[in-house]
C-alpha cells in the first residue's frame, strides 16, 4: 500500500512541476511574441545604413548632361546671369523679390515642414534686378515610440532649400555619385533628379537628394534631406500649381 501511495505522490509531484513549467513557458512565450521582451527582437546593427554611404562615396563622380542640364562636381557649373556682368551681387530686402520670375510659393509642403529659423530668406540683386531667391525649410522627425534600427523613423527629419535663379546656362553643381543622377519631368519641365543614397524601401530621409529644373529664365533647385524622395517630388510639382487658398 505504501509503495502505491508514494508512487502516486511522485506522479502528482511530477505532474505539478510539468504543469508549472508549461504555464511559465506559455507566459514568457506570449510576452516575447507581443513585444514584452526586447531581447527577443532581432536588432540590426545601429550603423548598418552607413555602409550605403561608404559605398556611394567610392563611386565615380563626373559631369554629365541630362535632360539638357549639365550637372556634376566640376568647376564652372555654378549658374551665372548677365544681369550681374560687371557688378557685385548684393543681398537685398526679401520684399523686392515679390512679383519677379524668381519668386515662388510652394503649394505643397508636408505637415510640420516650415521655414528654417536660422537661415534667413536670401534674396540677391545686381543693379536693382533680383536674380536669386533662396529659402530653407526645416523638416521635423516623425517616429514612433519604439524607434530602433529595425523600426526606423518614418522621416529622419532634416532640412532642404528651394533656390530659384536667373541663369544664362543650364548648369548646376551636384556632388553625388554620377549613377544617382537621372532625368525626370516636373510639371512638364525637363529636370535632373539626384536620387538619395538609400535605396527605395529604406529611404526615410537620410542623405542628400536634389532636383534641378530647367526654366526659361534659369533654374530651380531643391536640395536637402529629411523626407522620403516621393515627398520632394510632390514639393517640386507644387511649385507650379496654384496655392490652395
Amino acid at each position, binding site marked *: 500500500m505504501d509503495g502505491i501511495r508514494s508512487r502516486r505522490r511522485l506522479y502528482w509531484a511530477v*505532474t505539478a512541476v510539468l*504543469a508549472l513549467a*508549461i*504555464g*511559465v513557458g*506559455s*507566459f514568457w*512565450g*506570449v*510576452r516575447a511574441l507581443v513585444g*514584452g521582451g526586447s531581447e527577443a527582437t532581432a536588432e540590426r546593427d*545601429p*550603423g548598418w*545604413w*552607413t555602409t550605403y*554611404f*561608404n559605398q*556611394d*562615396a567610392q563611386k565615380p563622380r563626373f559631369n554629365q548632361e541630362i535632360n539638357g542640364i549639365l550637372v556634376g562636381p566640376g568647376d564652372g557649373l*555654378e549658374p551665372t546671369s548677365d544681369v550681374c556682368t560687371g557688378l*557685385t*551681387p*548684393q*543681398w537685398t530686402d526679401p520684399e523686392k523679390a515679390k512679383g519677379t520670375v524668381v519668386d515662388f510659393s510652394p503649394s505643397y509642403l508636408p505637415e510640420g515642414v516650415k521655414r*528654417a*529659423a*536660422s*537661415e*534667413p530668406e*536670401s534674396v*540677391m540683386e545686381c543693379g536693382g534686378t533680383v536674380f*536669386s531667391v*533662396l529659402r*530653407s525649410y*526645416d*523638416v521635423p*522627425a516623425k*517616429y514612433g515610440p519604439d*524607434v530602433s*534600427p529595425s523600426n*526606423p*523613423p518614418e522621416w*529622419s*527629419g*532634416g*532640412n532642404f*532649400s528651394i*533656390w530659384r535663379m536667373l541663369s544664362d546656362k543650364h548648369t*548646376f*553643381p551636384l*556632388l553625388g*555619385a554620377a549613377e544617382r543622377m537621372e532625368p525626370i519631368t516636373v510639371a512638364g519641365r525637363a529636370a535632373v533628379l539626384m536620387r538619395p*543614397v538609400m535605396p527605395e524601401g529604406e529611404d*526615410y*530621409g*537620410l*542623405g*542628400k537628394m536634389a532636383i534641378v529644373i530647367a526654366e526659361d529664365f534659369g533654374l530651380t533647385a531643391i*536640395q536637402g534631406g*529629411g523626407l522620403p524622395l516621393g515627398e520632394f517630388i510632390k514639393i517640386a510639382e507644387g511649385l507650379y500649381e496654384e496655392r490652395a487658398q
Partner: protein
Amino acid sequence: MRPMLILALTSVFVGILAGLYAPRASEATVFSFTLRVHPGAGFNLNCGWHDGGCPANPSTGHALDWESQAYYQINWKSFGWRNFSGSGVIARGEIDEVLEQCWKVKVIVRSSIPYNVEQGRISYTHTDTDWDGTTFDINGGSSYTVTTRMVGYTRSTDQPGCMDAPHLHQVDSGSPWARNSAKYPTSDVCLPGWLGCENPHPIWTIGYHQFSRNWSYTN
C-alpha cells in the same frame, strides 16, 4: 493520464492569459544627451553673432565668423555627454556639401537614441570638402567626451557677393541649439585683412563651445 492532460492544458491556458494581461513592470528609462559644438577654424573671432554678411543683423544672428586662410582645415569639434555610464556613439554626423548661393559644408547630426532622428545641423560656409556624403561617429560619455573630425577646408574664393576674404562662417540650424553668448560677444568685428586684427578666444577649451544642444528620449 487524463488528469495530467487536463492540468497541462489548463497551465497553457492560464500562462497565455497571464502573459497577455498581467501588468508589466514599469521599464521607462530616460536617456539624456548634450552636444557642445566648438568653432571649427582659427581662434581669432572675425565677427560676433550675425546673420547674412558681417556685420548685418547683429545680436539676433546665429553665425560667428572665424579666421581661416584659404585651404586651411575646417574641423568638427564637439564634446558629448550622456546620462548613463561609459562612453560611446551618441550620434552620427553626415557631411554634405551644397551650393546655396554660397558654398556650404553641412554636418547633419542624427542621434543614436532616438534612432537616426535629426537633432540639427551645423553649417560651415565658404568651405569645400573631399568627404561629401560620408558619415562619422559623434561620441559622448558620462563625462564629456571629445570628437574631432576634419570635415573640409576653407575656399580661396566663393560665389560673387558671398565672401570678401577667406574665413569660416559657422552657423547652426536654429532652436533648439543654444548660442554660447556668454563666451562670444555680438559686438566684436575684426574682419579678415584688417591690420593687426587679433581677437583670440580659447576655442578648444571646455566651455568655449559655439553651440550646445540637449535632447532626451524616454523608452
